[in-house]
Every structure is written in structure tokens, then in C-alpha cells.
């Protein structure tokens, strides 16, 4: 049996990964932000509906004995966390994702289209990852509102991901590639084997009408921007109109953080992944007297004054 469950501690980490939130104290008091890095058992999400599902082995690794059954969920959890860190690292332009609170198998996302036919479109979507990842099918991407696009199903809003990833290959395929693909379709229109035949017909025969339909679709999507998230989840992405009382402080914090960490060492992607870590606990420093470019100990001429 290998079903999936969510680890709240990691949900906390993802939160800090995904966006720079307010102070740690704030997070600690909020139920949706469990204490980061604290040893504790995962809490059970209150509104979760556990559904038992038959699942295939999550990993191809042979297990000699019962260890795999006991640790399998950990492997899956960390595989997805690794995927998520890869996404963060890619810094895909105009794409934001966040795993759901309930499960790392469901990610919420939003794409901002900055030019082209779909300019100014803000499309919310959800990524569903199969629970036998990375050995199953490719993840699915479903737009909250079906966008008018040859590759997007006009009813379900599902994006045709399979055409780009006919077979999902572990080590070669990563979720960031799916997200990248989801972005690309709005800049380069492909009309082969469409999920939305009407769009293709218009695209080929009456481009002006196609364009106006796209504009309507963008408008429609944007008009639903401030709607409640389709799926109720603490980590679902929700928009609200600019409200200085709420947002100004957060914005300031983000910029202040950027200034604070203008040190090139700290602004490298890997270090931005744990801003909270830097703020808490005593400052730790290792020691080094190795001159850069040398492999000799104590090759630095001067002893640095560290206080």
C-alpha cells in the first residue's frame, strides 16, 4: 500500500520557499503556517477528506524488506520537494506555483502573459501530479477558467500536456518543464491535433475573430481574478484588489528583504530558499583562512578580524 499523505512541516517550508512572508512570529501563530523546522508530528488537516487510493510503487528502487513500505511516502514527498526546488531555481518568468496545503501532489499556479495575443492574461491553474511520481504519467495542468486556446479543452480547461511529454521519464522530465510548456503555448500557437478544434478553425480561417475571442477569453479570466479559489485550500492562490492597509507592509518587507540581502552570496537562488533560516537563531560562522584559488590551508596573508 502506498498512498499519499501530507506533511505539515514541509508545507511550512514550502510556504517559506514560495514567497517571502511576514515575520516568523506571525507564521507561528497562524494555523496554516506550522512552526518551521520544529520537530513534531505532522498535524492532520482539519478539512481534509482522506481518500484511499490504490497506488503503484512510487519508486523503482528494489527494497530488500519492509523498509520501502515504511518509508515510501517520504521518498515521494522528497521527490516532489526536489521538483519544487527545481521550479524555484528556474525562476520561470511570469509563473508562480505553490503546492497545496493538503498534498504535495496538487500545486496551485498562475501565469502572467506579458505580450503577444494573450497579453495581460492572468490564468490560474492547478497541477495534478500522479501519486506514483516519477514513474507514472505526466502531470496534468488544468486552468481554472478554460482559456480559449487550441491546446486547452474548452470545457474542462485541461491543457494538452501529453503532446509535449508523450512518456514521462524520470530524471529527464521535470515539473518545471511542464510549467514552462504551459507558458510557451501562449506565445507560440500550435494548431496540430487540437483539443479545441473551434479555435484552430478560427485561427486558420478567420484570425481576426480568433483574436477577438482570445481578447474576450482574457477578459473573462481576468474578471474572475478576485473570485474565491476554486479549491478550498489554505495555500490556494487568491487575488484581492490592492489594499494599502494589507499589502503595503508586505510589499515593503519584500523590498526590504531584497535590500538586506543584496550581498551577492545571499542573493544566489539557493540561499533565497530559506530566508527564515537567516533570521532565526544565533549567527553561525565557520572559519576559513584559505586564499581563494589556493588549496593550501592558512594561505590567506592576513588573519581576518572576526568579531
Amino acid at each position: 500500500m502506498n498512498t499519499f499523505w501530507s506533511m505539515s512541516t514541509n508545507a511550512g517550508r514550502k510556504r517559506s520557499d514560495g514567497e517571502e512572508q511576514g515575520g516568523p512570529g506571525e507564521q507561528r501563530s497562524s494555523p496554516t503556517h506550522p512552526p518551521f523546522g520544529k520537530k513534531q508530528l505532522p498535524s492532520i488537516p482539519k478539512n481534509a477528506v482522506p481518500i484511499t487510493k490504490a497506488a503503484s510503487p512510487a519508486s523503482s528502487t528494489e527494497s530488500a524488506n519492509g523498509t520501502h513500505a515504511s518509508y515510501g511516502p517520504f521518498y515521494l514527498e522528497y521527490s516532489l520537494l526536489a521538483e519544487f526546488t527545481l521550479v524555484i531555481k528556474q525562476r520561470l518568468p511570469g509563473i508562480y506555483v505553490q503546492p497545496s496545503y493538503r498534498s504535495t501532489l496538487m500545486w496551485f499556479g498562475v501565469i502572467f502573459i506579458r505580450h503577444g495575443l494573450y497579453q495581460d492574461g492572468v490564468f490560474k491553474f492547478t497541477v495534478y501530479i500522479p501519486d506514483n511520481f516519477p514513474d507514472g504519467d505526466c502531470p496534468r495542468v488544468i486552468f481554472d477558467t478554460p482559456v480559449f486556446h487550441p491546446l486547452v479543452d474548452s470545457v474542462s480547461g485541461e491543457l494538452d500536456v501529453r503532446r509535449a511529454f508523450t512518456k514521462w521519464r524520470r530524471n529527464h522530465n521535470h515539473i518545471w518543464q511542464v510549467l514552462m510548456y504551459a507558458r510557451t503555448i501562449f506565445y507560440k500557437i500550435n494548431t496540430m491535433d487540437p483539443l479545441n478544434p473551434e479555435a484552430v478553425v478560427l485561427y486558420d480561417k478567420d484570425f481576426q475573430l480568433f483574436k477577438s475571442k482570445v481578447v474576450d477569453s482574457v477578459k473573462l479570466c481576468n474578471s474572475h481574478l478576485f473570485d474565491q479559489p476554486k479549491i478550498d485550500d489554505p495555500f490556494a492562490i487568491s487575488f484581492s484588489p490592492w489594499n494599502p492597509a494589507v499589502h503595503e507592509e508586505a510589499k515593503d518587507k519584500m523590498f526590504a528583504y531584497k535590500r538586506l540581502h543584496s550581498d551577492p552570496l545571499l542573493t544566489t537562488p539557493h540561499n533565497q530558499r530559506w530566508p527564515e533560516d537567516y533570521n532565526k537563531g544565533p549567527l553561525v560562522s565557520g572559519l576559513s583562512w584559505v586564499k581563494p584559488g589556493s588549496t593550501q590551508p592558512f594561505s590567506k596573508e592576513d588573519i581576518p578580524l572576526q568579531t
Partner: protein
Amino acid sequence: MTSMVVNGKRGGQSLVLKGVDPETCMIVFKNHWAQVVKILEKHDPLRSNVGGLGGGHGLGGGGGLASFRFGAIPGDEASAVQNYVEHMLFLLMEEECGQNGAMGPILEFVVMENVLERLFIWSLRREFTDDMKLEQLKMYEMLIGQAKQPLLHHKPVLKPLMMLLSSCSGSPSGPSSSAVETELVLLLNQLCCVLAKDPSVLELFFHTSEDQGAANFLIFSLLIPFIHREGSVGQQARDALLLIMALSAENQVVAKHIAENTYFCPVLATGLSGLYSSLPTKLDVPSEEWHCLHREDWQQLPALVQFLNSLEFCNAVIQVAHPSIRDQLVGYIHNGFLVPVLAPALHKLTLEEVMTTTAYLDLFIRSVSEPALLHTLLSFILLHRHDNVHILDTLVSRINTPFQLGTVSLALFRTLIGLHCEDVMLQLVFKYLIPCNHMMLSQRRVLRERDCYSVSAAKLLALTPSCCSPEVIPPPLRQLDSILWSKGTDGSHIGTMESKEVLSEEDDCGNSCVIGSEIYLDVSYLDYLCDAQNSISHCIRACCVWSAPYDGENPPPEEYQRSTLEEADLTATPGLLELEWDDSYDACPTQPHPEEDQETRPIPDEPPKHIQELRRTAVMIVKGSYIEESEFQNDVMVYDLVAQKDAHDSGNGYHAPSKPTEPAKQEVLDGPVTDQKTANSESLMSNGLSSPLDEMDSKKRGSQSEHKSLEGEDLMAQYEELIRTLGAQHSSPAKADGELKSPTVLMDDEEDEIDFNSFSPETPETEKLPSPFGTKPRSGSRGHAVPFTGPFLSVLLSRLENMPSNSLHVNLLLTGILAQLAAYPQPLLRSFLLNTNMVFQPSVRSLYQVLASVKNQIEQWSANNKDFPELLTAAQHSLLARESSLRADRIKKNPTIQPKTVVPLNETEVYATVLFTEFLKELAAFAQEHSILSYPPTEQ
């Protein structure tokens, strides 16, 4: 006066004085003084001839002065003076500042009439006993501590104070009584506090001396002899010195003076040597488990407490002092303590002695926090060579020694690795991994890859012995059920939204995220993950200061390989080789090769005699027979002369000092003689060479009187020698610090020679030596360095392979150190330890291979033992009990409780099995956390 201070009469008088107008006070003061002057003049040899003049006036400090006596002063007159003075001081203390900070009238009077100096001379004229000194010291202590206006700015106050201080110092007449010393240090401490608050006074302290013809800083010099003193006197002196050290950071003059004109740094450093010599050479090991000195251990050893106090003081000085003082001190510690004392101590003849020294070294490193001091300790370990072998190599070789030396050495490495010091890790681990010779060429690009799907973790956990499989272990040891999730939990939030969601999920035809119910998971594994995450992120932050990522590209493997090759052809260092593969303890681990006995040593001028000199010096300092250096001597004499001047003026001829204690002083004043003496003492010592301990014993046995003058003489000679050795071409001690760095630089160059050649196939000695591994590289005809991950990793893995037969505490240490290493984020190390998919050279043994071998041993053993499951359960219970008792101890700070052991501790295999299983979880957790915290970013 004493009585006044002691009985605290002031309190009562204070009330009386309130409201009394200043003019009245002034009149009273003047009246009192007039009475005092009458008595003083009556006995003044200049004014009258009362009292015959003694024949011999000694000029030698307090002793000389004490012998300079006039006719007995009647007791009633003495006490009358004392009474008047009491009142006068009180009036002075209570006087407020004049307008705009001007002197109050009483103070002005005191300054004009030179009251304090005249009183001091009066006390000298009477028998200048310890009681008299105490009285004077307390008087000043009270004045400085309680006066309402600044007094020290006035020379007529400062000068007699200085005279008093110099006469109270450990003058040639012998050390003062402990009561005087206590009071003296208290006063000095008070003066330093004043200095710290008002640095302008500092100028005056220097200027006062200049007037006397000797530029010095008496307060400071007087404190030096108390540096290493135990108890509160020593602590007060050290606190006072620290105040001056902090002053030096901002005041160039003070810094320069201390570095150039005092022997503060050498005294401090050689003092460490002296204190070290009184440490027990063998420790009473409390139990077999013992492997390092904890607080409870060293608090039982007063000598060790004293040493640590001084070491802590060095640390504090380095923290606050001016860089010039810091550098000088650090240099002296290296050349005056580490090299001459600690290095030979680490190479003593018996196992217990070496083990004890290793435990001390570990404790010292743990006790020090200042980077500059750590730099010194670590460069000593990494770069210093004793008998041509690096200390580090010797220490690594001892990991494999039997008895407790091996575990104590392991504990030392645990400390070293915990420092997150790049230089240490470079020498221990990375320099062997940088060339990437240990892996197949094709693996180099895999090096930085992250284990996206926890494959390594799964492989590690799959090594869990069948007897410890999660299904087999009964609760409560198996905490699986506590993570059980059931379907119908907590209905508070289940409502309409719930059903909506279920609907939507159905709509999406299985696109739902699902949460499994009733999953049994190993809860303890969550703790391991959390620990791993904390250790790794801590380590990543600590390693931010490192110079390179060690990722197989930087530093570039090719460059290192080439240099390795070149160096390999140059020389061979047989001594080193023997050590690295020596797994049986040799009583004399560093027996030099015959040819090394010739004068080809790198540092021929660092012979044992030097050690002994320093030892003697230090011992003397600690024993309190320290005599201040020349400048100070001059100063004491100057003050003495001042005091004697009155007597001289009285018509008595001035005689050159003729006391038996004088030669040392003369010598100091006389440069060439000193040199000659240095030569003498040197030759003496090289002749009568014995072990340092014998030297000490003979010192102790020697009669005091005989030694007194000798000690002073030797001391000066030794200081000269010390300075000479340290700053060979330089004349002033201040420049020595520049010089001090050169040994390090020198060693750096030498380091190149031996870096890798020891592991090159060209070195014939390698072949001859027995290897702990059957797979020891023999090939290597390609001319590349033979694949080798270095002695440290090799010896760790070799000990780990013996896990089933290791005792519990050895295994705890071993797995602890490997877990420390596993937290390091550098891809070279991470891939070697945790990537189970890496393909290494056949000659290289990986951690995974070793673990697999341990697993097999355990499986075999458990198959052959019927009662293994019961023993296993008992062992797990006893380890759990141990864990909780340790936790309780940490809270209660009561370390004495021994964990209950259900299974006899000789059942090593059983404990090893439990530990092994837990270790696999620990490593798997590290592997998993690395996959999401990986450093540095690689994929582009």
C-alpha cells in the same frame, strides 16, 4: 587610619558633616595639617637631629627603605598623626568640585602643600611594614573610590601613589605578604577602572613616569605578575588587565607600549606553558566510556581550572586588545607554548600520557572562541611538524589505536569537524577528493547532481538488517502507529465545502490529491529528517565563508592532479607513511629515521632545551617569583631614590646598593652582561639536559634561598633568549610578531612537498606497509596519484567496518562523526558519502560498501544466535532508557546518573545492530535533505 577604614567610621561622620560649610572644613583641615606637620618636622632629619641616622641605607626597594630608620617615633605621636590624617582624608573625600571643575580648596591645599607625598615619606620613615603598606594602599583605595572630585589628574596625588605602588611590588626584597598583594591588586583594579572611564588620566600615568626618566606604565607592569594567579586576586588582576587591553584597542600609545616595552605577551604565553606543566600527565579515567573532558571532569582538577582561566584570559585579550598585541600574543602562544610544550607532550612515551594530552588539546580547542586564537591552535595542528611529521597526521594515525587513545582521538576530530573550518576540512578530507581520482572519470559530471527521487536514501534504508525491519520490531520501540490517520477525523470543518470538494474531485476524474488513511510510518524518521535539515542548513550557513564550493570544478581537479604528480617525484616522507597505516600502537610512534638525526631538520633551533627554558620561566612566573623587566626595575629604583633623597640630603653619603639581591638588577642595566649570562645559562641547560619533568622536580627540590637570585637571573636570560629565538633578526620584541608569521609561511611551502607524494605509487614504502584494507591500491602505473580518499576517511571507514565488535561508545562516536561529515554540503564530500549511485575506483571503498559489509556481518551473527531477537529488544529498551536519562541530565545538569543497562554491555553486537539501524535512518535523512537543500545551485 586603618581603623577608620575598617570600622567604617565615615558613615557616622558623614552625617555630622552635612551642612557644614566648606570654609569650616578648610579651617579644620588646615589645623589638622598644622598639627601633623609639627610632628613630622620634629622627626625630619633635615630640620632636626633627633634620632641617629642609621649606617646602611638600602636603595633596594621596600626592604631597603624598611631598614632605613630613624630613632623610634613615640607611639603617641604616631597615633596622633594617624588620627589627624583620618579626619583630613575624610574632609578631602567629601569635598565637592569647585566651580567649573576647578579644584576644591582642600584639594588645592593638598596639592600645594604636597600633603600626600609627605605623608608617604613619613610612613617610610617609620618602619615600612606590611601593615604600613596596607594602611597606605587602603588610604588610596578609599580616596580614589570615594572622592567626589578627580584626584589623579594632580601630580602631587599621583606621584606618591606611584611611589607606594612601586614599593609594594614584588621587589627584590621578596614578595609582599598576600594581604598586601590582595590590596595592591584591588587598588590597581580600581585605577584601571578609572582609566577605562577617563582615558585622559592615562596620559598622566605616562607623563609621571617620563618625569622620572623612565617611560613606562607602572600600573600595567605591576599587574603582570598576577596574570596567572589563582583565586580572586588573579581574577581581579586579569579583569584590570583586560580593561587596559580594551584601552589599547583605541590608544596607539598604550598598544605600542605594551607590545614593545613590556613582556606582557611572553609572560602570558609562557605562563600557559608553566600552568600546563603542572597539569596531571595521566588522567584517572572514570570509565571505559570516557573520551573527552567535560566540565564535570575538569572542574575536579584545580590545575586544569587554572590553566583554562589563563587560556580564557588569552582569548579575552585577543578579543579586545589592539591588533599588534593580539598578533604578538598569538605568536608567542604558538612559539612559546604550542611548539615547545604541547607538541612534545603529544609525543610522550606512554599511551596514557599521549591520551591525556590529546584530551587536553581537545578541551583547549573547545574552550577557545576567538578566530585568531583558533587560527593559532589549528595551524599548529595542521602545519606544525614534530620530528618531521605533521601533528595532524599523527593524530589521524591514532584513531586506530586500541584502548582509549583511539576514542579520545576520535573525540578530538569530532571537535575539529564541528568547527566548520575550511582549512581543517581541506587537510582532512578535501585535498584527497579534489583531484577526483577516487571516482571513475565519467562520474565527475554526476558529482553535483542531486538525488531527486531519494534513490540513495532508499538504498541506505534497504540495508536495514532483517531482524530490525520495521515490521519486526514491537511497540513501543516501533512508533509507527502514532502517525496513524483515520478517515473520520475532526468534523469541525467538514461541511458544505467538503462535499463541494468531493464533487469537484469527481468532476476532475481522479485529479484529486489524496491523503492516505491508516498509513504506518516510522515516526522516528521524521526526527532524523528534522535533525538532518537543521544540521545541513547550519553547516551551509557556516560554510558561507569558505573560499570554494568543492564541487569537482572549483578547485579544478586537473590542476591539483598535476601538482600532485610533480610533487610526488620530489621527495618521499617515510615517517608520514608509516603513521597513516599504522593500526597497532607503537610505543614510540615517531621514531626518527637514522638520517633524520643528522642536521637536516627544518627547524634545527627548536631543541628540547628551549622547551625546558620556557618551562622553567613559566614555572617561576606561576610561582610568583616573577621580576619585572628592566624598565620597571629602573622605575622602582627611581622611586626608591626619591624616597631616599631626603635621607641623603640629611647628610648621609650615598652608597651603591650592596644587598645580595642586587646583581640581577645590575645585570639588567648592563646590556653585555646579560648576553653573557644568556650564553651561560644556555650552555648549562644543554648540558644538564633531562626530561622536562625532572627539571621541574629538581626546581621544586632546590632550596628557596639558593634559587632566588638564580631564578631572577635565569628569568631575564630566558626572556632575552625567548626574544632572540622569536625575532632572530629583530632587536625589539614588538617586531617579533612580524617574524612570528614566517614559520607558518615557511611550513606552508614545505607543506607542498609532502602533500600527496606519500600516496603516490612511486613511493616504495607504500608497498611494504601492511594495509588495513585488502583493497589498498597497488596499481597506478598511469602516473596519476593512486585513488585514495585520504587517511582520515579511510581510517573512519575501517573502524566503522568493525562496528559489530566495537563497543557502544566507540560506535556512537564513529557514527556521530560520520553524521557530522554527512551534513557538509560540498558536493565532493556529499557525493562520496551519500550518493549510492556513484561509481568509484575499484580501490576506493565507499561508505555504502562498508555499510553493506556491516549488514552482512549482522545478518550472519543474528542467524547464528537463537536469542538474538530478545537481546535486541532489551538493547533497544536500554538505549531508549539511556537516551531519556541523558535528556533528563541535560535538564537537571546532573551527569552522574548512569543509564540503566538491561543488556550487559559486552553484548556489543546487539548494541551495534540497533545503532546500525538507526545510523542508516540518519544517513538516509541526510541524503533526502541534501536533495532539497543542495548547495551550490548547479543545474542551469
